[in-house]
């Protein structure tokens, strides 16, 4: 599943961690993200908020998809598209620390 520069097939084994300068706060189902270095404040939807929680430096991306599929009643293809889109956007904005696998 490719979206922008992100191909989920390449990231399955990777572990992501929220960057040190990132603060995020759940607000209902959504979340607000403060990217200090970029000076940006972002709003992410429910799936985006869950992705931020899963980017804990321990859970590989392939497990994110399993968790999300179990939690949301969404077709797997649509979910993968959502995750790829969020990863693309959040990686570009420096929300995640450098990827390690």
């Amino acid at each position, binding site marked *: 599943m490719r979206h922008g520069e992100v191909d989920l097939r390449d990231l399955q084994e990777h572990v992501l961690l929220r960057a040190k300068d990132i603060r995020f706060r759940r607000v209902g189902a959504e979340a*607000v993200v403060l990217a200090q270095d970029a000076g940006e*404040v972002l709003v992410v939807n429910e799936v985006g908020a869950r992705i931020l929680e899963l980017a804990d430096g321990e859970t590989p991306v392939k497990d994110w998809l399993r968790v999300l599929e179990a939690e949301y009643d969404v077709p797997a293809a649509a979910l993968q598209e959502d995750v790829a889109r969020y990863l693309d956007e959040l990686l570009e904005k420096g929300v995640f620390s450098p990827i390690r696998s």
Partner: protein
Amino acid sequence: MLQWPNDGAKMEGKVWSCTEAGEEFLGVVENHLRVLTAYHLLTRDGLLLHSSGVVEGEAAYLFLGRSGAGKTTVARLSQAGGRDVLSDDMNAVVAAGAKPRVLPVPFAGELEPTPRGRALEKLPLAALLRLRKGRRHHLQTLSPSEGMATLTACSPFVNRDPHRQERLLDNVGQLLEHAAVGELEFRQDDGFWEWIGEDR
């Protein structure tokens, strides 16, 4: 230079300026005080917000936005319509309790506060409205997350301080328990007050 411990119990500020700085010195002092005020309010369950404050009835409306959003325009239009203006650049809100209060601060932008606006001490918060220039007047409620993002983005100085961001989010969350944030699209006349009035 600003110094303060993390518990916020004591803050110290020092200003050095060239003796030939003349009037620039006043600007330096004012900017210094703006920063101090933002940090101080954070320790008092408050926020210093990039906003234009306008009094309608006995309550204050805060129109939120960064430079160029239309804060001064809205203040001018409101003043022309007979309303008092607090500041067209920065206003303080204290979130403590179920009734958030607006505290005028002496930091104006291009527009001087009206005499009554300058004399007021504390007012109930009527509404928090993010500004958007447009071709019509329209008011809509923002989601809680958009409200939090707006208030955070409009909290200068402290929103760039990694040691204050958690507290900032706490204060914003506390304020949002008792006040929603709307978005006001407006054009260059004071007809937007009719939309705001319908929301009251």
